[in-house]
């Protein structure tokens, strides 16, 4: 299972890439493998103010719908409409082309609750 070292993670199987005050969010390789074929993605609206733990997107496979939570407080600044048009991108490239939304955040301290790659690997093994 691919768990990139440079990313941060949540116990809900999301990954978070931090660049400045922007957090890019997607689902992990483990999550896409568990879900299998992603056939539908529901994205949040750009501009939406979100609190950590809010359910703001949905990723669905043939058998199950899986909610995607905001990993930190912030505002949605960008969404990946490519995965809306072709949800299978999430299976093929969960950490790159399969990103789901980007949040702008103010409080660096929010990041402290996120898992590092080692902690996340422990969680899924």
């Amino acid at each position, binding site marked *: 299972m691919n768990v990139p070292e440079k990313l941060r993670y949540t116990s809900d199987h999301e990954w978070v890439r931090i660049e400045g005050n922007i957090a890019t969010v997607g689902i992990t390789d483990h999550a896409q493998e568990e879900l*299998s074929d992603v*056939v*539908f993605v529901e994205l949040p609206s750009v501009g939406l103010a979100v609190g950590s733990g809010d359910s703001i997107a949905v990723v669905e496979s043939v058998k199950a719908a899986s909610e995607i939570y905001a990993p930190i407080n912030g505002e949605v600044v960008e969404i990946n409409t490519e995965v809306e048009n072709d949800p299978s991108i999430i299976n093929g490239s969960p950490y790159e082309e399969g990103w789901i939304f980007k949040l702008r955040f103010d409080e660096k301290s929010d990041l402290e609750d996120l898992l590092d790659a080692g902690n996340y690997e422990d969680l899924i093994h």
Partner: protein
Amino acid sequence: MSGELKETPLREVHVELGAKMVGFSGWDMPIRYGSILQEHKAVREGAGAFDISHMGQFFVEGPDAASWLNKLLTNNLDKLGEGEGHYTFLLNEHGGVIDDLLLYRIRENSFLLVVNASKIAEDYAWMKAHRKGEVEFKDCSEEVAGMAVQGPRSTDVYSRMMGGRTLPPRNGVDDFEVEGQRILVCRTGYTGEDGFEFFSASGGGAHWFRSALSDGAAPCGLGARDTLRLEMCYPLNGSDLSPERSPLEAGLAFFVDLEKGEFMGRGALVAQKSQGLKERLVAIRCLEAGPPIRPGAVVQDREGNEISRLTSGTLSPSLGVGIGLSYLPKALAKVGTELRIEVRGRNIPAEVVKKPFYKKG
């Protein structure tokens, strides 16, 4: 989770192949080996093999076997010659469905019934309670392994597996032995594709399943089985069929012969027919690509009034849109009726369509 679930004789193969397992009707069953969409496609375009060892097999023999079964089942057994089979229903007194099953006439006075896993005990108890005449009636479900091989290439798979032997004709059954072990092969299935169901002694099940895989069938799980059957509008008992619904309401009158003489539930069906059906199980197709629609989703009329719920629902891999079944009042059951399916507060536009959803070619 698997603590209380029963394991099929094919389990060792599922484990080797890394199948994702789920509980289904009390059994630990593979839901998928890899991708449900690819397994679906394998069956539509090539061949796929499913473990169906969870299903039940009853054997009925004796001079009164035919007349007894014909009084318990809806289809007309007198139409079956030796080696032929058909789809039929076991009903309660009110004409409600206890189970839907396949009945095969192996020989003049010897029959095989293939019943749903979740209904084995109930079917057996019901039939035993209504036993009449000189019949021997046995539930052999525990001793039998089963697999279904389905898809346009399944005849090739069978030929390779069996050294050139050919399949029985559509809906037929072949009863023979291989190295002293009884094999029953039925030319039927639950996917809308050509194919067969293959029953052997449980100890030989894993061998035959491996043989089908090495002869060209892809292993397929319950996930693909559900999308394939729903594209064909084949009902799932417990979801689309129930003791409160008759086969007439389910749109399956073709498998009910009201003219054949008395049978369990007939009076109720005749009354229902003469009064006119109030509701019918219809096929509902979403008008645009969107989220999968799932069992239990609210069905609304075009004004937004809640009228029913889906009994089955999924995203059709072949069509790329949501499809489902629901019992709708007669006035809304006509092909072309506009509906909406509620998914997380959004209303997905849909309409009643002709069955099945999927047609070959």
